[in-house]
């Protein structure tokens, strides 16, 4: 692949669709197979594809390592926040039905969606960080 034209062009076309597909899997966790972890893995795969096609330098300009360090903990924070909100509203940790929303079904739907987003962010960030570290280990 000394001239990467074809792989690069195809990656350019595919990456946005892969990212949207990952978010679709995230949002349809209740209706089909999927959920936060799978969505995070697919989203991470799109970034891995970017690194493979365009190289690490260009990827580092686009996706900052610091942002991923931040996101790793931000995902856990979202997860914990949803859990604690349930406790503040009078239930147990992650007992969604106690959230102050009109119906119990809506409450548990939004609660699960919230923690899935947290899981998604953490999984994406951790996977990308692992990949960056493994790909760069020869540089030290």
């Amino acid at each position, binding site marked *: *692949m000394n001239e990467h034209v074809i*792989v690069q062009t195809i990656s350019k076309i595919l990456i946005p669709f*892969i990212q949207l*597909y990952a978010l679709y*899997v995230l949002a349809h966790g209740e209706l*089909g*197979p*999927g959920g936060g972890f*799978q969505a995070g893995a*697919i989203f991470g*795969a799109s970034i*891995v*594809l970017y*690194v*493979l*096609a365009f*190289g*690490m330098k260009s*990827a580092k300009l686009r996706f900052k390592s610091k942002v991923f360090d931040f996101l790793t903990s931000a995902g856990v924070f979202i997860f914990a926040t949803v859990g604690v909100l349930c406790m503040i509203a009078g239930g147990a940790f992650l007992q969604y039905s106690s959230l102050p929303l009109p119906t119990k079904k809506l409450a548990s739907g939004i609660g699960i969606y919230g923690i899935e987003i947290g899981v998604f962010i953490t999984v994406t960030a951790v996977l990308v960080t692992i*990949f960056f570290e*493994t*790909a*760069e280990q*020869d540089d030290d």
Partner: protein
Amino acid sequence: MMFGLAALAIVVAAIMVLYRGIKGPRVYDRLLAINSMGTKTVILIALIGYMYERPHFLDIALVYALINFIGTIAFLKYRETGRLD
């Protein structure tokens, strides 16, 4: 019935390709066999989804196609440059 027969044909094809993967002789022949088996697996997942009337399998087939592609590209890149980035 129909889907079962089609799935059987694809499994037979996958076994034939697997023989090429074992025999080689070069690493590229093996990689070709693996890539080919991966795309056959996509079809197999779709057919099995229809056999058991569970169309959600199609989501998995799409993800498998994607992972197969990225895996092939990653392995080729590693072969060529000795590193992943």
